[in-house]
């Protein structure tokens, strides 16, 4: 830049530049002779090869220290998040609205649910075992085939009225829609030791609560995630694991008003009061049903 301040004509500059590119007196190209360029390139190649090698070595040894089944630390992931299906996002979080009389407004929502539940069809769950126990399903050894652990079956029919089998429209048509609630997986996480975690949905808005509490039908009954789905042993140990689901059929959603509904998971080790994380242990969504 400093060079620009000196008063030089354009042709002089060009000449100097040409001379820089190729200096016939010293045989220098761009300020160096050819052999010097070769040496310096070799140095840089060697330098970067060594650096890359060292970095690769570091990453390799890092990978060696990692346990393939369990992450080393879970301090950033203490309580599971909750997700909702169908999931339509508005400006601020989940925002679902549809018109009962207009098919087009809810077929997409229904479709989402069907797609989601495909993973829970009996065929997809074929490799999993039937569990009946009400206790947590601890497996220390790898007794399942291919050195894995067993996963419990969760099939659509467990959701009964909200399974999409009897009512392919999941109650959207009649204004009593089903919402499917899923808890995120955390390796070796136990939501509680004795009682199964339960979903509880309610209006967030005090006004609606006072007027008429939200009536919800939960599937499976009581809206519980059976304890035998816990703990999760990770992708490698349980390749076919599917999260247990709870469906909530909202029975008395007021028409033509926007309501905010929150579904919490009530369990000993699940927190739902983290101010920074709106999806930890609970899910909030706006719902507006037009008529």
């Amino acid at each position, binding site marked *: 830049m400093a060079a620009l301040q000196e008063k030089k004509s354009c042709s002089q500059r060009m000449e100097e530049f040409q001379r820089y590119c190729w200096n016939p007196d010293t045989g220098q190209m761009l300020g160096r002779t050819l052999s010097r360029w070769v040496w310096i390139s070799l140095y840089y190649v060697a330098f970067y090869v060594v650096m890359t090698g060292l970095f690769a070595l570091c990453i390799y040894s890092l990978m060696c220290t990692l346990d393939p089944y369990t992450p080393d630390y*879970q301090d950033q992931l203490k309580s599971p998040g909750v997700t909702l299906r169908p*999931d339509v996002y508005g400006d601020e979080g989940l925002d679902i609205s549809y018109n009962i009389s207009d098919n087009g407004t809810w077929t997409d929502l229904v479709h989402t649910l069907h797609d989601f539940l495909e993973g829970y069809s009996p065929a997809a769950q074929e490799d999993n075992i039937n569990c009946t126990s009400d206790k947590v399903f601890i497996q220390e050894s790898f007794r399942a085939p291919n050195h894995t652990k067993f996963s419990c079956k969760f099939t659509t029919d467990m959701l009964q009225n909200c399974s999409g089998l009897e009512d392919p429209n999941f109650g959207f048509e009649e204004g009593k829609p089903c919402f499917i609630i899923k808890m995120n997986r955390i390796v070796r996480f136990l939501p509680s030791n004795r009682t199964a975690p339960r979903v509880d949905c309610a209006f967030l808005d005090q006004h609606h609560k006072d007027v008429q509490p939200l009536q919800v039908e939960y599937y499976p009954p009581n809206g519980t995630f059976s304890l035998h789905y816990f703990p999760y042993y990770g*992708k490698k140990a349980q390749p076919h694991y599917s999260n247990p689901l709870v469906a909530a059929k909202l029975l008395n959603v007021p028409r033509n008003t926007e309501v905010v509904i929150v579904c919490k998971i009530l369990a000993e080790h699940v927190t739902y009061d983290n101010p920074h994380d709106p999806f930890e242990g609970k899910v909030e969504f706006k719902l507006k049903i037009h008529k």
Partner: protein
Amino acid sequence: ANTAPLLLLQKTPRIYSVELNGAKDMKQTDKGDGKDKYRGLQDNCLELRKNQRQEHLTKEIDLDDHKLSNKELETKYHTNIVTGLSSTQAAELLARDGPNALSPPKETPEIIKFLKQMVGGFSILLWAGAILCWIAYGIQYSSDKSSSLDNVYLGTVLALVVILTGIFAYYQEAKSTNIMASFSKMIPQQALVIRDSEKKIIPAEQLVVGDIVEIKGGDQIPADIRLLFAQGCKVDNSSLTGESEPQSRSCEFTHDDPLETKNIGFYSTTCLEGTATGMVINTGDRTIIGQIASLASGVGNEKTPIAIEIKHFVHIVAGVAISIGVLFFIIAVSMKYRVLDSIIFLIGIIVANVPEGLLATVTVTLSLTAKRMAKKNCLVKNLEAVETLGSTSIICSDKTGTLTQNRMTVAHLWFDNQIFMADTSEDQLKQTFDQSSGTWASLSKIIALCNRAEFRPGQERVPIMKRVVVGDASETALLKFSEVVLGDVMEIRKRNHKVAEIPFNSTNKFQLSIHKTDDPIDKRFLMVMKGAPEKVLEKCSTIMVNGQEQPLNNSTAEAFYTAYMELGGLGERVLADEFPETYSFDVDAMNFPMSDLCFVGLLSMIDPPRSTVPDAITKCRSAGIKVIMVTGDHPITAKAIAKSVGIISANSETVEDIAKRLNVAVEQVNKQDAKAAVVTGMELKDMSEDQLDEVLTSYPEIVFARTSPQQKLIIVEGCQRQDAVVAVTGDGVNDSPALKKADIGIAMGIAGSDAAKNAADMVLLDDNFASIVTGVEEGRLIFDNLKKTIAYTLTKNIAELCPFLIYIIVGVPLPLGTITILFIDLGTDIVPSIALAYEKAESDIMNRKPRHKKNDRLVNKPLAVYSYLHIGIMQSLGAFLVYFTVYAQEGFRPSTLINLRVEWEKDSVNNLEDSYGQEWIIIALILSYGLGSITALNFTMLRPQYWFVAVPHAILIWVYDEVRKLFIRLYPGSIRDPGLPYSPGFVQNIVWKDVQSN
């Protein structure tokens, strides 16, 4: 006569006639300036300056008050010599002409200084970033009301950073300028003036033209005055002309030239002795001194070398930042990122590249050094000047007061046909010459008795050399000399009561006094005389050798003349001394014999060099700095001093010396044989620019003598044309233009005039030239340390930049947010960088050549390449290792991370799956660092052990850098040393880990 020999001491005011005409030479030079100096110059700029100078010179010549008679003066200034002006007249004139003071140099208003800090350097770039952020938010907001406030935060933080660092730098600079402000306050000067027929004491500022003022010895002349009456008046014009000789003043018009005539006294010069009455003819800026001072303010301030270097550095970094930014903007756009996002990336890249805290660090470093230098008596007025001294390659030094002590001192004695050397150091405690000879006993008596100078009473506890003396410079020197050698001179004088005396005058050129002796047996009177050697010798018939009187014959006379010439050739002022017996006498009738006296000896005096100077000059030499003497004094004196301090080294000769040695004409000497040159103002006047350049380049040792202020300026310009960084030292008003023009002007704090201090960038509080060497060392050290600081700061840029590049190209979650980068920058730029300011100097720092202004940059290619491509890469790898470790141990293996960006940043994904099948909610904004939550920062607390993951990389960087240093030491010069410091990688690697990882 078998009487005690009477010695005749005689005093020579001047032994070289040239000196008498000295001022004339100078004046002619001045007149010639405009016409000749720039002959053949085409450059418009110089032409312009020439005109200014010409104008200034014309003014000088306009002054013709010295030619007018008293009556004419009265009419011209509407005043009366007896009654003075009336108060009303004076008030009117004061209103018309303004106060009688030099207008202070124009100060930059504080607000401008402040704003300069706000927009200088990288600030513009950051302001642009901040505004882009706000614009981006505006666009987002207009399309989507709920868009996040990230960009607003970022813009605000950027603006805050600029403002904070600006305030910080401004504060630092203001603090160091304040030292100077307190320093420049002066005791207001008073003047004795006749107004309304009454004598009044008024502040000198209120003087107006036509005022009649009275001055006496010790006063500063309050304005330019035309003398109307003078008695034994002598003035010290050294601050105006550089001459250390006192000049006598009378009311006669003696010369056409106002500078030369005796009936003008100049503003700010000092009246040494006598009394005078004068009429004020010029006040304030219209005085001669005022005109020279305004010449100084007309000289533009050069940009300091460090400012140029910083600018260069800013250009490099800004160039890198903008080109990488634009490149990746294009890449991002072509990778189908939204334009708005790409702009945010662009800002991120620029922010990562710009070392926000660096400029503040530079200011801190400079002010730290300035403080350190102030402790060593170098007061720095302009912070950036701290470094300038380090890159100085030529020092143009004034002689009087800078290299010399600015007081006459006995340097040599001649008696018994031998030359003895006296101690001329500042305290003169070791007088080592042979004091056993009988001649010395006589000589010492003459020195003590034939002397009218006296110590001011009440100074018994003050060291002799520091006592205040009433008397002229030569007599003061003799008084102090005899006080040191003999003890209490006043007591000796009391014992040898003075009965009569003839004071020195310029016709007689000798001084004589007659004393009763303290010898109780010998009742005769003792007559002692001193004066100009040839005058004294005329009156002698005998000479004293080893205490015995011997007839003065041709061979002894010749010995005397040889000694006289030899001492004169050293540039010293020579006096001779004497004595015989007496009878009754009458001073006025001179009825005592003034012949057949006995010659005793010669004394020579010189303004001796300061004892620290020769050593300092040797150090400058070994540091590759050329020291040039530029003085208004006479060439012989200048050369003698130059030789004694080493500006002309012992074995180098001038062309004239060679000619004399070989006994050939000056023209026949091969100029390449001469290493030294003495150039007078007269010769300089006739030189073209090219010739001056040739002189400056071909002689390593140069002395310029008899130079005018304008010529000093030309010499400085000549040096600057050689691409040299020029330091000028000086104390007089005549130095101030050169001080201003120089890259760094150094004024003397004690002896220096205000004009000089105002024009200077640095003030030596102890007037010690050796402090300059300290300054040079500090300046070089600070340059080295700044280099280290910058290298340190630049390495981090890559570690900050890589995350962005990887993020854009590979699509890993963003490791380092823009605001985080700002925090890291401010945290790591300032504090650890300041640590580097305390680095010790390399052992060879004073044996290096000064850096070349255009070739040795603060930031050069090797340094940038080394910082960016070597250390920076290692740092980035270390940082990425931490990043991957954190993610892998929390569940995201590197293979999962690649291309995870889209999912990661989607608000609608609340079940992002990691390598273990765990599902994550990614919250964009979270901070939990004890202070509660600040949404703008993407921080989370990490485990302590992650702080150590990058330690091996830090060690690697350290080893790599040490190996580099080893190679440079083993094969010096093979690789250009970018001057890099101890591994800086560690700190950033650690801070870097505060990545968002939730």
